[in-house]
């Protein structure tokens, strides 16, 4: 071989290697995981990271489209509803990643295990209706292998059962995982589009597309053009580092906030915005003997605080105002309650001062309020600084502006939870919850019952009666009851709704949608690699 031929061959080999490398790179994407997962058991996980991995490795019976409509997934069709019984016919092609056919019996076993008390699934009550607690008695499951169908019979009707079945915790676990739940701790046992190829805890999780996967929602198969064949989840706790990785081209999908959001947004890449299904709200502790039991005090607090300013200062104006404890995107949201909100809790410091004066609170020469005995009206504000020190300062100044004496307790998250959940040593706080399910029923525990999460000790008989009716009815009737329930909370000054936080996922070289429009997760099924 002469020298020229040798050089030519080497060059050809080099180019070929480059082409192969480029080919490999084009089918692999790197996605940001903001934290390590807790457990890969989709029924049991209670973190959004757990959900993200669950929707990568598992299927659900139904899915949700971009408009919030229920569409087929593992179940190709269904009859009935959660009002009594729901029968779902399954896709016969579905096979678990370990090769086991996913027949009706396997699906029924997974559905039974999901709500079994021994499973300890924390959020399955949101699928089956009712408050948090034991769910085993709320339903039963039967199957017909020949017909390829499963039937869920509700012992307590729940109109939004189908929506609940689209949730990550309602993922279908394959027989190997049902038989041996220990396998689910760190390894998925699902029928989803990906199988776990490599796992390095706290560092990365490599998911490999299953070539046989043809039963995805929206008719998705892993052979679809642009479907990522390898999906690498990179655990990056620090948002600044995640932003750096994204800007350096080492991550394809990222979600960041604050100053890092501005940096990444400036790159003008693909972006998907979403709003929390839940909301943030201002609440006053109504424990017996506390000042918050006085409705005048509550209303003055609510009217003293501008939610628009709080959103600007704490969240860069990125949010959607709501008139209740769920976002305007949730089912049964009633815009008609805006007027009730304005009347009860809309920002109006002058009205706040007048309400306090009418209730007998006098303002001294120092501008501070005092009760009938001349004692200053002190509010213990507890916050953990999630929205930043400036937002907490805004709250303090707003309350002081109408005459309250504020005793701030800006603590870290543990101290915040301690006060809210256990000691009750607080008067004013802001609470925010972002459930993956767009149903008001997911949030009732924060405003009803004796659970620890009813932190403000709300006890509103009208609300309790109306949401109970809303849970057992469906459609417009259910929505009417929800509207009545939420109206009662506003009129009785139980809380001040603020806003639903906006969250953005950035993509480079990829396009995707949010899973079920939920801001905690993006959807691997809809993700496609696009040209540079």
């Amino acid at each position, binding site marked *: 071989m002469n020298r020229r031929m040798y050089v030519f061959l080497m060059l050809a080999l080099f180019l070929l290697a480059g082409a192969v490398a480029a080919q490999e790179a084009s089918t692999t994407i*790197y996605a940001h995981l903001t*934290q*390590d*997962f*807790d*457990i890969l058991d989709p029924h049991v996980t*209670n*973190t959004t990271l757990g959900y993200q991995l669950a929707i990568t490795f598992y299927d659900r019976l139904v899915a949700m489209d971009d408009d919030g409509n229920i569409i087929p997934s593992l179940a190709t069709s269904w009859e009935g509803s959660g009002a009594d019984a729901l029968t779902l016919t399954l896709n016969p092609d579905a096979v678990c990643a370990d090769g086991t056919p996913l027949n009706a019996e396997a699906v029924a076993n997974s559905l039974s295990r999901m709500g079994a008390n021994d499973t300890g699934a*924390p*959020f399955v009550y949101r699928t089956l209706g009712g408050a*948090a*607690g034991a769910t085993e008695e709320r339903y039963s499951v039967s199957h017909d292998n020949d017909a390829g169908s499963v039937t869920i019979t509700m012992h307590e009707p729940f109109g939004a059962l189908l929506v609940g079945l689209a949730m990550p915790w309602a993922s279908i676990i394959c027989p190997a995982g049902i038989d041996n739940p220990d396998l689910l*701790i760190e390894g998925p046992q699902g029928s989803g589009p990906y199988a776990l190829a490599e796992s*390095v*805890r*706290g*560092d*990365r999780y490599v998911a490999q597309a299953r070539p046989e996967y043809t039963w995805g929602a929206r008719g998705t198969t892993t052979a679809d053009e642009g479907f990522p064949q390898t999906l690498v989840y*990179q*655990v*990056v*706790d*620090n948002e*600044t*580092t*995640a932003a*750096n*990785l994204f*800007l*350096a*081209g*080492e991550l394809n999908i990222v979600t960041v906030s604050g100053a890092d959001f501005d940096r990444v947004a400036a790159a003008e890449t693909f972006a998907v915005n979403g709003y929390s299904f839940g909301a943030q709200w201002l609440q006053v502790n109504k424990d017996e003997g506390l000042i918050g039991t006085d409705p005048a005090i509550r209303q003055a607090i609510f009217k003293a605080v501008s939610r628009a300013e709080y959103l600007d200062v704490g969240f860069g104006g990125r949010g959607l105002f709501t008139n209740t404890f769920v976002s305007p995107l949730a089912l049964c949201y009633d815009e008609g309650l805006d007027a009730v909100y304005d009347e009860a809790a809309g920002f109006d410091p002058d009205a706040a001062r007048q309400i306090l004066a009418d209730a007998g609170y006098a303002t001294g020469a120092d501008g501070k309020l005092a009760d009938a005995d001349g004692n200053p009206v002190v509010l213990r504000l507890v916050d953990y600084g999630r929205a930043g020190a400036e937002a907490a300062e805004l709250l303090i100044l707003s309350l002081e502006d109408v005459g309250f004496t504020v005793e701030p307790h800006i*603590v*870290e*998250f*543990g*101290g915040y*939870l*301690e006060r809210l*959940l*256990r000691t009750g040593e607080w008067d004013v706080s802001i609470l925010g919850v972002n459930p993956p399910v767009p149903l008001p029923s997911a949030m009732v*525990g924060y405003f009803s019952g004796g*659970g*620890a*999460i009813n932190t403000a000790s709300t006890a509103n008989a009208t609300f309790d009666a109306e949401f109970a009716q809303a849970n057992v009815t469906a459609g417009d009737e259910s929505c009417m009851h929800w509207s009545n329930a939420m109206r009662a909370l506003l009129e009785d000054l139980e809380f001040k709704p603020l806003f639903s936080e906006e969250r953005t996922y950035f993509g480079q070289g990829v396009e995707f949608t949010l899973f079920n429009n939920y801001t905690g997760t993006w959807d691997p099924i809809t993700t496609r690699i696009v040209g540079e």
Partner: protein
Amino acid sequence: MTSSQALQRHSADSGTLARLTSRLGPWPRFLLKRAASLFVVLAMLLALTFLLIHLAPGDPAVRKAGIDASAEQIEFERKALGLDQPLPIQFIRYVQGVARLDFGTSFITKQSVTEILQQRFPRTFQLAGTGLLIVMTVSVPLGILVGALTREGRNRRLEVAFMSLTSTSSALPEFLTATFLAFIFAVTLNWLPVGTTQKSTAIILPAISVSLRPVASLARVVRLETLNVLAQDYIRTARSKRLPTYVIFTRHLLPNVLTAALTIGGLVFAGLLGGTVIVENVFAWPGLGQRVVDAVFNLDYPVIQGIVLYFGVIVVLINTAVDILLALVDPRTLVLSE
């Protein structure tokens, strides 16, 4: 027993110990004293890490049970964690657990802390070890070189430049260096990766970040030691004998300077381990530092306890090893420790 009797007994015991140790040679006496101080430090470390869970605000049972948990579930978790027991019982159980290398389970990831330590320490060790390599290979030659060039008031400009540069570098906190390096070399120039441990070059920026401060500090120490040695009579004697410069440097200067450098090197390694805590977060390096910061934000007490104890034990062991090494290299240390 009265207090005076107790005092007499204690004096008698101390006297017995003193008599016993006096019969031993200097090495056994030295090792015995080191072992005793090691025991005391480890006991204090155990007590401090145990108290961590009690002094930190927030209820670990609430953290473990989750925000949605009922009062019964929280109480169940409190019992499961043993927090319903008196403090001394809890401490005994903690010590027993540590003796079995059982540090508990992470509230967040449900992994055993021992498993976390096993998985992540090699990464931290890799980073700190690479950092130490950089420190020793850069600071020793640099310090000797600048020391030699600036001896006896020569090259004032070089001395000022060296002092300014090393002062600035040793004052830079690791997070600032790391963020700066990441922004310049990874994000802007795209020469090196920000994180992604799959790439072999991924360690370069984190290792430079953790080593910059100790490089500057050690280079100053080595320079001073070089100046000190070069001013010694035996060096003058060597020069007057017209020994070649490389012989003076390699046979007379280097061994003396290296003794000081190695002594500090052990302590530098302990410092590098601490430095990794922030740097690992900036570069998404999956070591113990990244994990402990994550645990602090999530109030994952068993992980915090386990990692703090682990780091503490390593630092204490390194310090002890340095003491022993010093005694081996320079037996005068044995006399000084008496």
